[in-house]
């Protein structure tokens, strides 16, 4: 049975499960990643463990230990048995891990500081990484060395558009962003833009909508912006949520597009998830949430990830909470 995405169905999402480590191991969850089919969820925690969940049944599958190298920014490749994640110890290499054999396939070497974000291309086996070493790098899964390096001040954000042909690079502190043609990186960005509101500085995530029309700049401070993905023009200002207290390190982001790209779901410091409907709105306006979904009890989630295929989404901070559509 399939479910459409609309305001009514979104309103019936409920928190069904919470996963929490024992107190001595509790640490912030730094990344959330669904696989291509939406059947698996991989989280990385500051406790140097990753956790694998079955998203189609909301069940815990396995802990993926990485005590030796630490873990951060874990993401699936196009294989459900492989993931790449960045290291926090020993070195800052990105590691390609086979979850079937529990053996590393390759180390991607070159970064000189923590890699806080990894984005997999939707088109092929390449990925981009954003690091505190003031660089964004393009990698191929088959090679240990980077294919390209883009100098970038920190903090920085990256995102692939749904075609896999365009990479967006953003610099929140300078309120600048640029779009690069992946196949013509040597020519530099084909589009640069500046965020019009200088007060909007602390955004920590970029995401293209699945239809490729919009570019979301998400923050944890009660505001998100939606830009035109072709021109960089600011279209919508999403407000109406309580901002979270300032936190320096970057996480999985506090807002995300729905799978159809018509809604944005974002976390609220009041312990709820806000839903904005921008697809039918007139551009250039400030939008308020059209509905709120209560967060899991005794949970104050900060980051959110929406399942690309199934009617569920996940929030996280120190817990991992599963929300599923329940028409009852």
């Amino acid at each position: 049975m399939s479910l459409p995405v609309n305001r009514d169905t979104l309103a019936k999402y409920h928190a069904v499960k919470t996963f929490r480590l024992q107190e001595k191991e509790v640490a912030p969850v730094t990344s959330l990643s669904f696989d291509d089919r939406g059947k698996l969820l991989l989280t990385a925690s500051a406790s140097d463990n990753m956790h694998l969940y079955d998203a189609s049944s909301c069940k815990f599958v396995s802990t993926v230990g990485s005590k030796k190298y630490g873990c951060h920014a874990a993401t699936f490749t196009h294989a459900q048995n492989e993931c790449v994640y960045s290291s926090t110890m020993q070195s800052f290499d990105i590691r390609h891990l086979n979850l079937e054999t529990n053996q590393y396939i390759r180390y991607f070497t070159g970064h000189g500081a923590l890699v806080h974000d990894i984005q997999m291309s939707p088109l092929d086996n390449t990925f981009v990484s954003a690091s505190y070493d003031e660089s964004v790098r393009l990698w191929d899964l088959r090679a240990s060395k980077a294919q390209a390096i883009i100098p970038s001040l920190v903090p920085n954000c990256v995102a692939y558009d749904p075609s896999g042909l365009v990479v967006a690079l953003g610099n929140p502190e300078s309120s600048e962003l640029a779009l690069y043609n992946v196949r013509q990186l040597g020519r530099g960005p084909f589009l640069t833009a500046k965020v019009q509101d200088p007060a909007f500085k602390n955004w920590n995530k970029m995401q293209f909508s699945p239809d490729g029309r919009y570019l979301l700049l998400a923050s944890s401070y009660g505001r998100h912006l939606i830009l035109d993905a072709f021109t960089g023009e600011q279209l919508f200002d999403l407000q109406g949520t309580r901002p979270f207290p300032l936190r320096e390190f970057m996480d999985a982001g506090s807002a995300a597009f729905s799978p159809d790209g018509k809604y944005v779901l974002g976390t609220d410091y009041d312990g709820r998830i806000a839903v904005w409907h921008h697809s039918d709105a007139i551009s250039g306006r400030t939008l308020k949430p059209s509905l709120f979904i209560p967060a899991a009890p005794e949970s104050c989630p900060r980051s959110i990830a929406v399942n690309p295929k199934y009617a569920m989404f996940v929030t996280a901070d120190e817990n991992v909470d599963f929300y599923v559509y329940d028409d009852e």
Partner: protein
Amino acid sequence: MSSNPVPQSVNVSHALPATVIQQMRTNIDEYQNKLPLTEQEQGKLTSYISDLNKALKEFTNDNKHVQPGGQGVTNIDIELVNGLVSLYHDYLNKFLSIQKNIDSNPVVEGSVKPKTQKAKSDSPNLNLDKGVLALKNQATENAQEMEISADQSEPQNDQSGEENQNSQQVEEPPTEPKMKVEKPKRKKVPKKEIYIADLSKKREQSPSDSNETEEVAEPEQPSQKKISFTKYLKKDETVVESKKRQLVDDDSSEANSTVSSDSTAVKRMKIDNSEVKIRSILKNSELNSLQTASDAIDGKIKKKVGITFPGETDLVRVYGEDLPDDGLKVTPNELKKLLRPFKEGEPHEKVLLEDFVPKPQKLIIDTNVENSDISELFGGPVKCETQTPVLYRDNFKNFSKDLMKPPREPIPEMNNSRDTSKPLVVKAYGRNSLLLRNDRGGLPYKRVPEVRRNAYPVRYQK
């Protein structure tokens, strides 16, 4: 001072001729390497000593006038006198040391080198010596008796049998009186003579040796047994002693058998201890782990050692505060989860909606992207160019059971060293381009933030 190089004041009338000195020099080398000496050589040695003593005394008297500052005395005179005196002293000392060695090793061909208790006490193998001490005492006593009787009888050359063994010691050269005088010195034995391997010599000293002498070790074995006993001493002294007795105490075969049976019994007990089959009910006990290891070696399929409950819902009742008086019925699995809610590294699951089986439905996603360049992953027409097999792209469930353990390191790449290509440095935009300048445009370095637990209070809807 006279400049005449020829000594004029030295009286050499009583100095030893050069030929004698030469002969002495030759004989010193011979005698030092040739111990023991024959009687003739010994006589020569004695005469050399007396000659040297006499020459030294007379020469010194004759040349008392040769002193520094003496009338007509030159440096050469002084050097000549001192040189001859030192030469005589040197040779004398050497001959005396040779004679001393002779005294400590009596010149009797084919005789036994006696052993002393002092040497035994210096031996590192004290335990070994303890066991042998009593036998040696008896052996030396017997040897003394035999020597006395041998002195009174003719020497015999036969080396087999008790009498022959005894007679070897009795076989004495014409210098019998000397040997008799030196007999007490036989008891002084160098350290290395202590070892039991000198059984042939022991045999000669102990007439009570049994007929099993042929089984006794040969003279080459001392070094071997020395090594072996040391090893045994380090491992187990009791075993060493028993073995020692077995080799040395040929007198009593019964003692040997009992000792050997004791040693084998010790070994048997040790072996038996390792074959205990009783399983400890204690979790993680050593014996339990040993047992499971041995069973694994035997190929047995091992289950976890522990107490398991059958799946009975009426099996467990929990009583306690805030619980019903008649107890709370729980299944063993539920109880297990209550008592041990957390596995190491595993998050605890808390179900928020009871009686709800979370089964997310598949979404109908309407994006209108058919005529676009969007990837199939977002519903578009463009295929994802990945070489991942279909098996691993969907419905994969065969995750490793050891994901909690550290992953294995990757197989080293062979082409890494040959890959000299450098990444493309892409043109930066805006303020990022300042990074490519030498001075970074004055931009400061940013500190990498630490990931810490939230310090702010949690807010949530009740």
